[in-house]
C-alpha cells in the first residue's frame, strides 16, 4: 500500500537521457573564492555524472556546512545543504528508505572529522551504499581559518597563534579502523585521476570514501603543493592501482618493497631491484591498505614515503540498507495481519 503512493509520482524506469556535463550544473552562481580547489572538484563531479547512466532526478547530494558543503546548490540534481556534520546520517535515512537512489555526501575535513566524526565512523561500519567526497583542505574555510582535525601539528591558525599542539587524524586510517569498505584518495589538481576515482567510488556497492586534497587559497594555500606541483609530484605522489607494483619517482625510477611488515623504498633498474620484487597493490588486503594509508605518519621510522593516491582498499560487505529492506520485504511477504488485526491485538473483551 505504502509503495503505491510512491508509484503515483516516481519515474524510476524512465529512459536515461543523453546527458552532458553541463546538464548537471544548476542555475545558481557558484560562490567560492577565485582559485579555490572546490571549482575543479565540482567540474569533475559534473563531468562524471553523465557516465553514471542515471536520470538526474534519481541522484541526491547531501552536504553539511562548510565552504565545500555549498556544493549541492551547484548540482542540478536533488540536494540538501543540511547542518554541520550531520550529512552522513541524513543520507543514511534517505538511503534506507529509498535504496534505489544514487546518494552522494559532500563534506569537509571539519564537517566530517570534527563535529561529524561520530556519524562518519558509523556510516563506515554500516556500509550504506553512499559515495562520500571528503574535501580535505586541512582548515576550516567557512569560519575563516581555524585549524581542523587534519591540520598538521605546529600550524599557526587563528585559534592556534602559538601553533597547534593537536595531533591530526589520518582520515583514511580512521575510516579503515571503522571498517570502511572503500577507501581512496585523490586531489583537486589531478582532474583526470580524480574523475576516475569518483567513477570507481560510484561503482562500489557500499560506503565509498574519497578523500580529496583541496587547496584553500585563502587560509591554507599550497599545503598540498608537494603532490600537486608538477616538479615534486613524481617523487611525492604514489599512484596505486590494483594488481600493479608500487612505483613512483621521475620516470618511475623508484618502487616500494615490503620487508616483512616494513615497507621500504628501493631504486629500480640497474643496480637496483626489479619490478618483480615490488609490493603489488592489492585492494582487498586490509593490512596492506592500512600500511599504505599510514605512509606519511610513521615518523618513528624516519623514512619519507610518498603519499598514496588511488583506491587503497575496496572489499565487498553487505550494505545496511539491504539488510533492513530484506527484513522488511520478508515481513511484508509473510504479512498475515491487517491494520485492524493490529489494532485489535491479542486479547479483547466486549462491553455490551
Amino acid at each position: 500500500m505504502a509503495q503505491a503512493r510512491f508509484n503515483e509520482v516516481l519515474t524510476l524506469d524512465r529512459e536515461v537521457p543523453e546527458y552532458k556535463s553541463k546538464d548537471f550544473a544548476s542555475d545558481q552562481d557558484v560562490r567560492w573564492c577565485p582559485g579555490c580547489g572546490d571549482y575543479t572538484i565540482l567540474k569533475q563531479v559534473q563531468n562524471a555524472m553523465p557516465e553514471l547512466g542515471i536520470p538526474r532526478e534519481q541522484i541526491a547530494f547531501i552536504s553539511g556546512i562548510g565552504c565545500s558543503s555549498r556544493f549541492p546548490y551547484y548540482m542540478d540534481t536533488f540536494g540538501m545543504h543540511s547542518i554541520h556534520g550531520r550529512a552522513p546520517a541524513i543520507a543514511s535515512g534517505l538511503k534506507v528508505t529509498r535504496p534505489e537512489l544514487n546518494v552522494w555526501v559532500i563534506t569537509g575535513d571539519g564537517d566530517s572529522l570534527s563535529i561529524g566524526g561520530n556519524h562518519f565512523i558509523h556510516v563506515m561500519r554500516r556500509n550504506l551504499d553512499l559515495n562520500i567526497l571528503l574535501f580535505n583542505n586541512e582548515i576550516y574555510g567557512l569560519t575563516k581559518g581555524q585549524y581542523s582535525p587534519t591540520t598538521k601539528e605546529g600550524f599557526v591558525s587563528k585559534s592556534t597563534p602559538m601553533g597547534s599542539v593537536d595531533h591530526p587524524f589520518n582520515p583514511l586510517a580512521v575510516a579503515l579502523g571503522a571498517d570502511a569498505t572503500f577507501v581512496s584518495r585523490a586531489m583537486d589538481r589531478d582532474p583526470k585521476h580524480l574523475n576516475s576515482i569518483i567513477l570507481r567510488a560510484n561503482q562500489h556497492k557500499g560506503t565509498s570514501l574519497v578523500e580529496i586534497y583541496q587547496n584553500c587559497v585563502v587560509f591554507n594555500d599550497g599545503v598540498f603543493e608537494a603532490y600537486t606541483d608538477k616538479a615534486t609530484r613524481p617523487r611525492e605522489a604514489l599512484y596505486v592501482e590494483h594488481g600493479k607494483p608500487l612505483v613512483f619517482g621521475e620516470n618511475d625510477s623508484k618502487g616500494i618493497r615490503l620487508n616483512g611488515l616494513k615497507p621500504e623504498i628501493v631504486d629500480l633498474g640497474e643496480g637496483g631491484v626489479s619490478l618483480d620484487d615490488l609490493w603489488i597493490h592489492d585492494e582487498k588486503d586490509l593490512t596492506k591498505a592500512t600500511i599504505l594509508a599510514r605512509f606519511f605518519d610513521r615518523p618513528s621510522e624516519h623514512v619519507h614515503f610518498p603519499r598514496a593516491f588511488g583506491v587503497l582498499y575496496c572489499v565487498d560487505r553487505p550494505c545496511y540498507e539491504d539488510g533492513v529492506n530484506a527484513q522488511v520485504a520478508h515481513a511484508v511477504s509473510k504479512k498475515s495481519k491487517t491494520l485492524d488485526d493490529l489494532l485489535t491485538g491479542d486479547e479483547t473483551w466486549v462491553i455490551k
Partner: protein
Amino acid sequence: MRLQSQPMSEVTIRFAGDSGDGMQLTGSQFTNTTALMGNDLSTFPDFPAEIRAPAGTVAGVSAFQIHFGSNPIFTPGDEADVLVAMNAAALKANLTNLKNGGLIIANTAGFDKKNLSLAKYDVNPLEDNSLAGHQVIKFDVSKLTSESLKESGLTPKDIDRAKNMFVLGVLYWLYSRPLEPSVQFIEKKFGKKAPEIAAANIKVLNDGYTFGEATEIFTSRFEVKQASIEAGTYRNITGNEATVLGLVAAAEKSGIPLFYGSYPITPASDILHGLAKHKQFNVRTFQAEDEIAAIATTIGAAFGGSLAVTGSSGPGIALKGEAIGLAIMLELPLVVVNVQRGGPSTGLPTKTEQSDLMQAVYGRNGEAPMVVVAAKSPADCFDTAYEACRIALEHMIPVMFLSDGYLGNGSEPWLFPKEADLQSITAKYEPSREEDAEPFKPYRRDAKLARPWAIPGTKGLEHRIGGIEKQNETGNISYDPANHEFMVKLRAEKRDRVADYIPMQDIDNGKDHGKLLFLTWGSTYGSVKTAVHEARLEGYDVSHAHLRYLSPFPKNLEYILKGFDKVVIPELNNGQLVKMIRDQFLIPAEGFNKIKGMPFTVSEVKQKIYELLNK
C-alpha cells in the same frame, strides 16, 4: 462459598515484591481478567531505577498498581485498598501508598531475618504492632507454594518462581474473578515449551484460590460489577503501545511508509521496540548512533517521502534542537515524540514529569515554531500520535508529540477503532513534470501555507534545500532582509494556521463559565477529571477543560478562559503551560504544581478545589 461477596464500586490493588518476584506479571494477569470482566480500569507499573538491585533491598522492589471499578476510571488510584507485600522491603517501600485501614497481604517468608535486615528493619513490622492502623493478613506464600508443588518434580528454584500465582489465586478468590483467562494465558505461554511448568503454575493458581475459599483468614469477599462504559470491543493498552499503533495507523491510512529513527532512552525505548516488530506494515526502524543521528536520519527519510518520526525523552530531545530547526527551515513533515521523564539533566529517568513543554515550544535557536500536541491517557496516545502525523503530513511541518512516563507505561482499556473509521489523511507527493514545464518552485504554498512534497526520483522536480534562509517560492538562498522577516512571520503563521484545521476547545466537564476552571494538558487529565467529577457531585461549581493542542492553541481558547473567574493550571512541573496562558491571554491564571515524579492524586486535586471554593 462460605462468604457472600460484597459489592464494591471501585478498588485499588498494589502488588509489590522483589524484582524477581514476578509482580509485573501478576499485575497484568489480574488486569486482563479484570478487563474481561467488563470493569473499567487503569494501571501503573512502578519499576526500580536499577535493572536488578540486590534481592531483598528496598531499591529492588517492583510494584504494579491497578484501579478498577464499575464506574469510569481515569487514574490508577491515589492509594491502594490492598497492598500485596511479598517481602519486607516491598512493605517498607509501599506502605505510604496504602489507605488508612487498608488491607495488607503479606508473605511471611519474605519477613525472615535476612529479608528484614536487607530491608533495614530492626523489628519485624508484622509483629511489632506498627501496622495497627491497617488490616494485616499474613501467610507463608513460599511454603504454601512448595507444599502445592511438592509432587511436581520441579526444582526448588522453579517452585519458588510460581509463588506469585498463589497470590494471584488468592486475589481472584477475594475479588470473585474467574481463573480461566489466566489458565489460558499460562497454557499459551508455557504449554508447548515447558508443559510441566504450565501445569505447576495452574495448580498453584488453583490452590491459591482454594486457600482463600477454605481458610478463614479472610472475613470478607468482594465483587466489582461490570462498568457502564461505552459499548464495544475493548483491549488493554499502554501509552507506548498506543503510540506505536497510532504511528502505524497513520502510515497505513495515508499510504506513506513509516520510518522511525531513534536512540534508546527510558521511558521512550518501548516505542522503538514496538515498531521494530511491525515490519510487515512496511515500517523501517533505525537505531541510530545518537539522538542527533536519529533525527538526522528522519530528516533524510522525510526528504525521501517517508512519514518520518523520531522519538526520545527529555535529554535526547535537547540534543535534537538544532536539527529540529533544520526541519522547520526545510518545511518537511516530521514527528518528534517526547516521552517525558523527571528532569533536569538525567534527573529521575524512571519517573514521570511534564517539564519539557517549554523545551517543546521554545527550545531551539532563532524563531523556530513547531506544532505541539500532547496525549492525556494511555489510549489517547493512539489518537494524539495519529493526529501528530496528520498535521505533519497535511501541513508539511514538524510536530512535537508529548507523552510521558506515566502515560507510556500505564495502561487502560481501549475501545479501539476500525481502520475504516479513522480520519483520512491527505498527503500527496508533487507529480513529475516535463522538461519544458515552468520551473518547479519548491516553496510555493497552498492554503495551509504548506509547500509541495517533491521527492527524489520524480522527474523534473530536482531542487536544493537547506538551513540558510530561503526565498519564498523558489527556495533559493536569500540574504534579503525583507525576505527574512517575511519568512520568519510566514513560518509562524503557518504554525498558527494549523488552528484552522483542528477542533474547537471543549469543556470536558462542567459549565462553560463560572467561578473556577481547571485547565489541564497531558497526563494530569485523569486525576483532575476524577476530582472535578467528584467535586461537582458534591455540589462544587468547578469546570474542567483539557488541551490536546498546545501550539497553536484552539482558536476559541481565550473565549473559554475568559468565562471563568479563576483559571487554575495543574502541572507536573514548576509552571509551564501557565506561563504561555498568562502571556497569551493576560489572565491571572494560577499554577498548581507537583514535582514528585508521580501524578497528582485525585484527593490532592480535590483538596485544591475545596481550598479554592471554600474560602
